[in-house]
């Protein structure tokens, strides 16, 4: 009965505005539901549609385990009011549909921008870019770029993407740069 209710909820969700933007959602639903309910403790599994999974559980997923942006992903997709970054099934589906093959490049770049914006201020400034590069190269001390290299790299990035020359990258500049990037579509995806 709970599953049937859940299916109805999913169907309603499927016609919702968010899903209308993102056609990948319908295909992902069934296996996503299975994976999501596996993250819950046994007693909550029947009520998976309305349960919230804490962040620590989400991070045990193999697809997120090795990802340097795992915390940012949880933060961006979580709709929790407490700020504890827990995810409901809707958030989980949202995340999967954005990362699926059938999501449009617009949606992907929008969410990528939010993930890379470490201080959530709506622009990517030098500090954000530095944190981004450090995420990419690894967490240890010896895997970071030297200060001079970092400076040169950020200078180059801003030269290429900052059109209005204000020292930060806003959403439209980011989307413009990413639309010309040939590897973005193939790397910004998660397959269950």
């Amino acid at each position: 009965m709970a599953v049937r209710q859940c299916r109805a909820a999913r169907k309603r969700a499927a016609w919702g505005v968010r899903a209308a933007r993102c056609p990948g959602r319908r295909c992902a639903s069934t296996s996503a539901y299975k994976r999501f309910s596996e993250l819950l403790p046994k007693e909550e599994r029947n009520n998976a549609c309305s349960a919230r999974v804490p962040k620590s559980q989400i991070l045990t997923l193999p697809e997120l385990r090795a990802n340097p942006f795992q915390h940012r992903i949880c933060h961006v997709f979580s709709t929790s009011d407490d700020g504890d970054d827990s995810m409901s099934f809707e958030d989980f589906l949202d995340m999967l549909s954005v990362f699926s093959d059938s999501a449009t490049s617009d949606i992907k770049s929008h969410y990528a921008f939010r993930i890379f914006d470490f201080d959530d201020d709506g622009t990517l400034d030098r500090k954000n870019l530095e944190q981004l590069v450090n995420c990419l190269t690894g967490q240890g001390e010896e895997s970071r770029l030297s200060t001079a290299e970092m400076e040169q790299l950020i200078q180059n990035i801003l030269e290429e993407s900052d059109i209005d020359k204000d020292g930060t990258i806003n959403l439209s500049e980011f989307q413009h740069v990413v639309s010309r990037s040939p590897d973005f579509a193939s790397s910004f995806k998660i397959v269950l």
Partner: protein
Amino acid sequence: RDYQQADIKSLSGWKQWKSASSKSLKKCLNEVKELSSYLELWRHDIHSIEGKFGTGIQSYFSLLFVTLPSIISKYGVFNSSFAKIPPKNIEPHCTVYNPSGNKGLVYFYTYLKDLLSGTGFLEVTSLFYGYYTIDDAWLSILRYNLPLAYLLATFAYLALSLLWIIKRSVEGFKQNLVHDEDQFQSYCNKVFAGWDFCITDPNAARLKHRSLQYELQTDLEEERMKQKIADRTMKEKLRIYSLRIFINIIVIAVLSGCFYSIYRATVFSQENSNVSIRDDIRMDSANLLVQYLPSIVITLANFVAPQIFSFLIRFEDYSPAFEIRLTLMRCVFVRLANIGVLLFSLWSQISYCATVECKACGYNYELYPCWESQVGQEMYKLMIFDFIIIFAVTLFLDFPRKLLVTHCSCKLVQWCGLQEFGISDNVLEIIYGQTICWIGTFFSPLLPAIATIKYFIIFYIKKISLIHTCKPASRPVRASSSNFFFLVVLLIGLVLAFIPLGISIAQIPSSKACGPFRNFNTSWAVVPATVLGFPAGLQQVLYGITSEAFAVPFFMVICLVMVYFIALAGAHKRVVEQLREQLVMESRDKQFLIRKIAEAQRH
């Protein structure tokens, strides 16, 4: 949802039905697509490789998948009633051909030897050109013209391959053409699209971090080096250019050495391979070795030359990206030119004519009564040897190396480390094998089928070798530009395969002793003969199309269309530039106005 429903209410009944049916159609299509993706060959394997080793290696395996549709093989054989066509009046000595199929009791190893060298019992099968006859076959009332079918099947196979490759490379071409001047091996692509979200294995993630760090550092260093090159003085430039010319001369010398050794090996092998002596096992093994000599020499050249090139290029002081491309181009050239030299030496042997009788036949009828079968056998041997080498290298080199590295803690062994999956080397291997298949398809119609089986097995061999014995490459290869580059090289291989085929079909007289083209001067001659049999109106049309009066204006129209598209692309690029400048000015205007407002507020 509320907005959507409000929209729907405002539409008329017909439009409502249309939108509802299009939604259900979309849903249906989605489900069909999902189902068919399960059927896609090797989809799961390629995804798991992608997860562990990244998208670069996945592009190699996808290329392997692209070459698989060489499934088309020709079976122009009908066991139904044949209409016997009497052979034309030709010199009798040209028609003497006795392929020595196995008669009576033979040792078992003879079969093995024949399997490896394409002679003996294999020579009389449908594997080679010599099996096919000039007779037409009857399908109830229709007459099936076997020679024409043979020729057209070859053309159809090559045309299909061409279309397939062009279709796959058109997407990459679009990207490259538009973004060429942006030089998108650039930082934004690496930083924003650098992390491969498909990676699930923590070890692979660690390696990806390291490779990203390495790649960024290399690019920054390359930029500093470009700056250094721009600052070079005249004297330094002179020194570098003369060094480069010297090294190119060495490269040409190495290439000539390879070509000459292949030529000599082919000539030696053709002169000394003796099929008649079948008793002595030692002589037979030596004979097999002699028969395989061209393949062995080609494989050695393909192995040695790239090592020499990658050693030499260090002295030429190019930027790292250009170094890689130049080495790759040289290796590709070596591989394809080796096949070309083999074919050239075969051709010189076949058309070498000293006596008058030989000139009457048009080819060396004593040594090569059925020369197409011989060429087919050479291609067959090349293919089999290629497969044996790949299998042997994996079995006897990769696995022992892995065992050695895991169990022996000697410092030298640990420094050597595990094998890296060299993407360019493996891709060149595929291209080499596929070019052999294309060239050999006219002479050995079942070669594509053998190639299909070969690539099927190689996929699994390479996958097992990759997962169990290789470590991911420290220098990553970007999937997007690599895909396009590999397809371009494959296309070059196909275009180069047309040349020997064209010469064989149109120039060299076909064998009079075997094959479906006995009655014709050259293999191509069957087409004009068929056209003569068409109704008069159709003949006129065909002659009109192939005449100069049609071809020249057609060519000019195509040139005009191309010029138009190039001009259009240039105009679009200029528009993009202008729009970018406008955007910059807009932001300046905005800043100016904000300053003005701030000033006005202060007063």
